[in-house]
């Protein structure tokens, strides 16, 4: 197991390193002059370039960038957005906002989704089951920003109860609408998966055996059905978390949340953002993505011993 985990971590780190280098390379070979001012003389530009290390070969530049990033956690300074402010202080604020709202969305979505899925599976073929199916279809088919637009329209504009835009001073209150709209996709996917997995497990021989031995009700569901039904759900949860990070983009933009998603949208649309930010965001997103995938792989191995064995067999 340890060997498997170490190998996975090694691969993940190597992949991240390669991606970082590729991103760095792309950003460095980008056309354009970092000093477009015409008042600077050629000497001044040359001095400035030397000072910023732009004349070094790209591998040396990359090594310096990486050293600064790893040792000091320094992404460099932004030059256009938040002029002169270090990128990592901006990123820290944005990440805390994004993660708190995303975390709330995951919590709401998973809890309600599990509840709904279990209820639907236990009432198979009845009204609740149909309701669960319809809800999960809607949740998958409609983007989260559309839910946000509707919630915002009805509960902030028509009935001005919740704030129309995000307000960091009233964090919990003003994050109700964004986290609800973000959670709907998670909720619907988890509900559908839980329902299908549970139905499958409930039809399996060992559950019939447990029933035949006189086990029923809560203890049967908890100890025999849920434990085995939950394993595959862990694997869906990972892409969902990643989706949440990416799906949060427009939600953050629309609701005016100062988060990494909004920064990313700014990077994509090119609104007042510079290459350093694109680089920093690219590395951050890739690291998150790879990290979550790694976590799930390991978690899956812990939950289901069979995979561990296969992993070992695969190693050999």
């Amino acid at each position: 197991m340890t060997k498997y985990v170490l190998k996975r971590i090694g691969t993940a780190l190597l992949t991240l390193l390669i991606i970082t280098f590729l991103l760095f390379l792309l950003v460095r070979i980008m056309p354009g002059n970092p000093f477009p001012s015409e008042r600077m003389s050629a000497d001044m530009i040359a001095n400035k370039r030397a000072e910023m290390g732009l004349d070094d070969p790209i591998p040396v530049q990359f090594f310096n960038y990486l050293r600064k990033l790893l040792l000091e956690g320094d992404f460099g300074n932004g030059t256009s957005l938040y002029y002169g402010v270090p990128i990592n202080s901006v990123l820290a604020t944005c990440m805390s906002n994004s993660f708190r709202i995303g975390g709330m969305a995951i919590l709401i979505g998973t809890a309600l989704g599990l509840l709904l899925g279990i209820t639907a599976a236990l009432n198979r073929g009845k009204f609740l089951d149909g309701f669960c199916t319809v809800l999960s279809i809607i949740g998958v088919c409609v983007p989260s920003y559309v839910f946000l637009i509707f919630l915002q329209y009805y509960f902030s504009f028509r009935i001005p109860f919740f704030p129309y835009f995000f307000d960091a001073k009233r964090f919990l209150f003003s994050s109700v609408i964004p986290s609800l709209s973000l959670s709907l996709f998670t909720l619907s996917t988890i509900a559908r998966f839980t329902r299908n997995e549970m139905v499958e497990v409930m039809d399996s021989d060992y559950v019939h055996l447990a029933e035949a031995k006189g086990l029923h009700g809560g203890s049967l569901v908890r100890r025999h059905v849920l434990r085995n039904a939950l394993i595959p759900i862990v694997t869906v949860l990972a892409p969902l978390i990643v989706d949440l990070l990416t799906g949060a983009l427009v939600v953050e933009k629309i609701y005016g949340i100062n988060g990494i998603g909004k920064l990313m949208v700014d990077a994509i649309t090119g609104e007042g953002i510079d290459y350093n930010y694109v680089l920093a965001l690219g590395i951050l997103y890739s690291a998150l993505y790879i990290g979550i995938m790694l976590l799930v792989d390991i978690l899956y191995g812990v939950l289901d011993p069979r995979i561990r064995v296969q992993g070992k067999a695969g190693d050999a």
Partner: protein
Amino acid sequence: MSEQGRNGAAAYVPQPGDFEFLTGRDIATDKNFSSLSYWKGVAIHFFKDKKAVTGLVIILAIMLLSIFGPMMNSYGYRDIVSFRNENNRKVVAKGIAPRIPAVHELFTGEKYDDDFADLTFFFGTDDLGRDLWTRTWYGARVSLIIAFVTIFIDMLIGMSYGLISGYFGGLTDQVMQRFVEIANSVPRLVIVSVLAIFMPKGMGLVIVALLLTEWIGMSKIARAEMLKTKEQEYVLASRTLGARNGHIIFSQILPNTIGPIITQVMFSIPIAIFTEAFLSFVGVGIALPQCSVGTLIEDGFNNITTLPYQILPPIIVLALLMLGFNFIGDGLREALAPKLEDM
């Protein structure tokens, strides 16, 4: 006993005209239990599935409407509806709610008493006075074309990549799979954001972004299928007969692995539509005055406080497209690999 049946009736004695000998080709075909071709079986299974048929109907309806919808009235997708009223003043049909005069008259018994009394707008008009019915179906057309074209190219790339990687195995496979692993670890948004620096905004950006990301899933499936089939006897036979690798991969194995790839295509199309809608919503996708589902949702969002109905048609079309393709994908997946209990 031998002349009589169990319940007293006379036992059957074959007469000369009762049976006839089969001749020629008829001998080979069993008409009572005729064998089904693979695709016929898939089709029967698919059309038995209510969800799959619903999906198919939805998609066909939207495709037909996106072809013929804009022709159903005289407004173009970029035309601003305006005319001169009796006072010879120019009136622009800005922000009109959905209306069908005949239906209105039927229910209320009176006509609209404004300048546009006898004009029909199924979905209303937007803030500039463009007919939303036309724009919605035109946008659906643009979104569908982008999705189909990019996913088709992705299918070609991913399929070739996966099949080649799986067929040759060994070092080729190792190298190609490491590349896929790295490409798969870059979030789509990072690719888009880097692309956005290099490329001008517009349809090209959307297409390239989709081309760069969606082939990976296809290649994985194609490779898995290739690994499953390449050890089979017909491949060996083909190789023994001296067939070239290209012939074996694309003429012999490909037709036998196409099913799962088509399923993957069906699941990729909604992703493409979603991504296009997202990019256009953010403002780097389709440029004005062209429109797509994404730009229409953006327009609707910008005017939601004054013209709240404007956002509904594109959202419903988007949701139905997602629904339809997902249903078809589910149906195809089950039809291609039926479980034993379904048979």
